[in-house]
């Protein structure tokens, strides 16, 4: 599945032929309207619900909510850069250097969650 949309929850549900009520039942949610809000992105799915979706459709979170993952990844990477700068001002003990090394490897990763550039 490509990554142009923020969420593919509805797509996977339609392809499986399931109704919103079916998914609500599988997720122990009260009604299909909760699913509707999740599919329209007016409600962010909680971690247990997201993991349940992954189990139902046998996919990874990045396949279901690439937009959400992209936003979270960007926020985490930005904070990682800030933390790295703060650590660099501290005395270079082995522990501090290890922490900086880890943060650099984190920010150097081409995040899988990043959306492909639009053509």
């Amino acid at each position, binding site marked *: 599945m490509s990554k142009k949309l923020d969420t593919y929850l509805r797509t996977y549900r*339609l392809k499986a032929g399931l109704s919103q009520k079916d998914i609500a039942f599988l997720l122990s949610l009260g009604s299909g309207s909760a699913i509707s809000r999740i599919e329209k992105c007016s409600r962010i799915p909680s971690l247990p619900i997201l993991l349940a979706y992954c189990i139902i459709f046998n996919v990874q979170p990045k396949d279901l909510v690439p937009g959400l993952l992209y936003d979270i990844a960007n926020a985490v990477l930005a904070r990682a850069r800030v933390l790295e700068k703060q650590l660099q001002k501290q005395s270079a003990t082995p522990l501090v250097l290890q922490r900086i090394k880890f943060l650099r490897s984190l920010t150097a990763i081409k995040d899988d969650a990043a959306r492909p550039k639009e*053509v």
Partner: protein
Amino acid sequence: MNNAKEEVQKLVLAIDPAPRGFGYALFEGPQNPLDWGITEVRILKNITSLKKIKELVTFYQPDVLVLEDCAGDKSRRCKRVQKLIAKTEEFSISQKIQVVKYSRNRIQEVFSMFHAKTKYQISRKICEWLPEFSPRIPPKRKVWMSEDPRMSIFDAASLVLTYYYLEE
């Protein structure tokens, strides 16, 4: 999966007005439907339909919007639907979305290459290519029947597939 090829595929949305609402289909590549369905509207048809169409277009931000070309005297669409299509086109252009229109004749020309001419044959052909559409296929229409509302989903899908065939 070829990621470079995934990036090139445009997000194409088609809207097909129906007597009580509209059908729609969103694709990212001719073999990758992302969303399809019917939105039912019973009162203030054009006002409510346009509002829901705007919500759909705003939510998905497609690269291309495909509509039926109702120009010409031989169009069998009523004035209300022609106005709705015109308003939809106007809105999409204001959102800087490319709008492409095909007449029913053009769609039939494309699908006739795949031995499908009537709406029913076209819907069967779409189900053959995209089995996920099969649960929505309406029964074959008899002379005394009105068109099944579900046919608007296939009309929308046929618009998108015509686009991919002719443009991509």
